[in-house]
């Protein structure tokens, strides 16, 4: 019997989650976690060639495959990073050994939830999957059981649940709008059917549904003013989780939002979703850019930078058109790769220094050349300096919006510059100058950092033509 790749991509994390929950020992768990993630990545890549038929529950299309491959790739590299990171946390006694099994099982369960959300062809199933992914990350954010970690997890849980509840309300309204046309039952929740029939839906119901979906999934994307959970959850959880939160979970929520945006765009009577997205995107960029200046905690700093970047991405998708969507997709990919690389470096740095306070770190390029310079490279990439890929994508975002809305583009550029200043200011303090804090060695896994930064660097010079064609195609799908 052969298993089709879509089931495999869901079964691998699910089965390994069960195994990881049973297997004792940190080494075995970490190794299995890496192997399972690598297998998922392999299957995800195979989806590029072999695409199964669209079903009532699951499907693979050109949009979802971009997200799935990215998801599995960062999931894999993070599992490699996590192996060395968690090992150190155990040695230093910060993490209780009995929780490691739980952590690994939750990691794979989270991957399952995210993959399921990305492959779902059913808006109800997609909601359940996003909920599952949220739940598992809440549990992992509270992993250290310190007062701060619990507060962060609690805040994340409450805000995330309210967001997810609103998203479900929006989903129900979409069903109500679809029912007169698509008929009762499962058909009216299948996205491919919905898209075909969307032009004849009741537009006013669809409008209200989108507001709920934007607020609901927007909370999970971390858009201002719904972002309150995000910095805490990034700062207090284990760093691998910060990396997947920024690099993947925000994308998954964004993906859900994009699906509904396409639905709305197909209905001529519905409001345009774009101005709403542009507004929230710009607000997030500006807000996060100014907040960056007052951060004293290194992981919080980069969490705000994630809010800023999600703002840019949502802004780009809001600008729409083939160029805007292309820029949004590229920016999303680049941000995922760069931000997780930064969190990998930051995680090891925080372990060496024994603190996350920026004031207690300094001169990293001198004391820890590899970590220091990768951090410098990561920050240079994330603020959009050439020759990195973020420069290309931000350039595209700005130029595509200048042709449509020059004034809004100016606001965006202003926000980017403010954030640029803040991050460079902090980075120089961290990387150069006198050495501050402990200078002990760290058994770091540099490979994931190098892999991510290399990809971002290559993307800055040269995007493979098939990839460009693919993104262009997806961009036209997004309308």
């Amino acid at each position: 019997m052969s298993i089709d790749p879509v089931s495999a991509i869901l079964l691998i994390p699910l089965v390994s989650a069960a195994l990881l929950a049973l297997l004792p020992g940190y080494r075995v768990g970490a190794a299995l976690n890496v192997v399972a993630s690598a297998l998922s990545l392999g299957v995800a890549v195979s989806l590029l060639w072999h695409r199964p038929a669209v079903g009532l529950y699951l499907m693979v299309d050109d949009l979802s495959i971009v997200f799935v491959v990215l998801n599995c790739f960062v999931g894999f590299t993070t599992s490699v990073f996590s192996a060395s990171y968690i090992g150190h946390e155990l040695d230093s006694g910060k993490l209780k050994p009995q929780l490691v099994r739980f952590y690994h099982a939750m990691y794979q369960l989270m991957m399952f939830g995210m993959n399921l959300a990305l492959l779902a062809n059913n808006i109800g199933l997609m909601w359940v999957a996003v909920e599952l992914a949220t739940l598992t990350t809440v549990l992992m954010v509270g992993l250290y059981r310190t007062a701060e970690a619990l507060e962060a997890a609690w805040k994340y849980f409450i805000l995330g649940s309210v967001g997810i509840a609103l998203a479900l309300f929006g989903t129900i309204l979409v069903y109500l709008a679809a029912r007169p046309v698509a008929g009762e039952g499962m058909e009216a929740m299948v996205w491919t059917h919905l898209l075909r029939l969307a032009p004849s839906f009741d537009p006013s119901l669809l409008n209200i549904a989108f507001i709920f979906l934007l607020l609901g999934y927007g909370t999970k994307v971390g858009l201002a003013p719904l972002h309150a959970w995000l910095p805490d959850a990034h700062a207090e959880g284990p760093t691998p989780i910060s990396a997947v939160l920024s690099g993947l979970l925000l994308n998954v929520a964004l993906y859900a939002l994009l699906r509904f945006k396409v639905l709305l765009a197909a209905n001529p009577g519905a409001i345009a979703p774009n101005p709403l997205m542009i507004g929230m995107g710009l607000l997030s960029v500006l807000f996060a850019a100014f907040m960056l200046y007052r951060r004293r905690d290194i992981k919080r700093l980069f969490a705000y930078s994630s809010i800023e970047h999600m703002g840019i991405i949502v802004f780009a998708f809001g600008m729409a058109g083939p160029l805007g969507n292309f820029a949004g997709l590229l920016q999303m990919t680049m941000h995922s790769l760069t931000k997780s690389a930064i969190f990998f470096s930051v995680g090891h740095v925080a372990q060496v220094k024994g603190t996350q306070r920026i004031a207690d770190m300094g001169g990293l390029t001198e004391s820890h050349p590899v970590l220091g310079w990768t951090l410098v490279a990561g920050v240079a990439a994330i603020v959009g300096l050439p020759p990195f890929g973020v420069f290309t994508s931000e350039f595209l975002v700005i130029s595509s919006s200048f042709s449509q809305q020059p004034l809004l583009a100016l606001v965006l550029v202003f926000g980017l510059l403010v954030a640029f200043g803040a991050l460079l200011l902090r980075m120089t303090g961290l990387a150069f100058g006198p050495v501050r804090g402990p200078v002990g060695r760290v058994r770091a896994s540099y490979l994931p950092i190098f892999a991510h930064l290399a990809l971002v660097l290559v993307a800055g010079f040269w995007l493979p033509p098939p990839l460009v064609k693919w993104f262009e195609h997806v961009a036209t799908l997004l309308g």
Partner: protein
Amino acid sequence: MSHGLSFDIAHMLAGGLVLVSFLMLYQDRLLALLHVLSLHAVVLALSVAWQAWIQDAPHLFITAALALGFKAILIPMVLRRMVFQMGIHREIETVGGIGLTMLAGIALVALSLEVMLPVTSDVDPVAREDIALALSVVMIGMLMMVTRRNALSQVVGFMSLENGIILAATGARGMPLVVEISVAFSILIALIVIGVFLFRIREQFDTIDVEALDRSRGGQE
């Protein structure tokens, strides 16, 4: 049986849920609040069971049974035990400005009706009013979560919010996955809230007042 009567009963039950939500808003004692939560879930169970009956959708009885067994009996019982264990059963929670909160609640209900009724005119009449009333319950649940400082009351607020969503989902005739979604929500509540957080929060702080959590805000000046 005429359609009119079955619609009226459906609306009465949904309206009853909104009413019980209002009852919740002004409870300043945790135990009383838990009683009202039970009542809320009972009304929800009745409403869902009625929908199952008039829609001829037997699977909805599972959701109704879940609401009754899990949300009306089990969860309030566990929460009650926790309240006693923590010795906060005599405490009176400061619910700032009951009058103002009630007024805000009324405004939210008006808003929900104003928003939902015009756009659902094409949908069948049961769903039409049910959705509007369900949104009211959701809104009042959110209002409760913002006005309360106590973690337990926030959980209660979230549960009432979730009841509103289940009401909406069952009111939408023929909606698939409702049972699955109600199970997912029950897991959400059971697993996280009861199992992990309150216990840990209790261990860490000897209080479940979320202001104690705010004081220990990490790393942020």
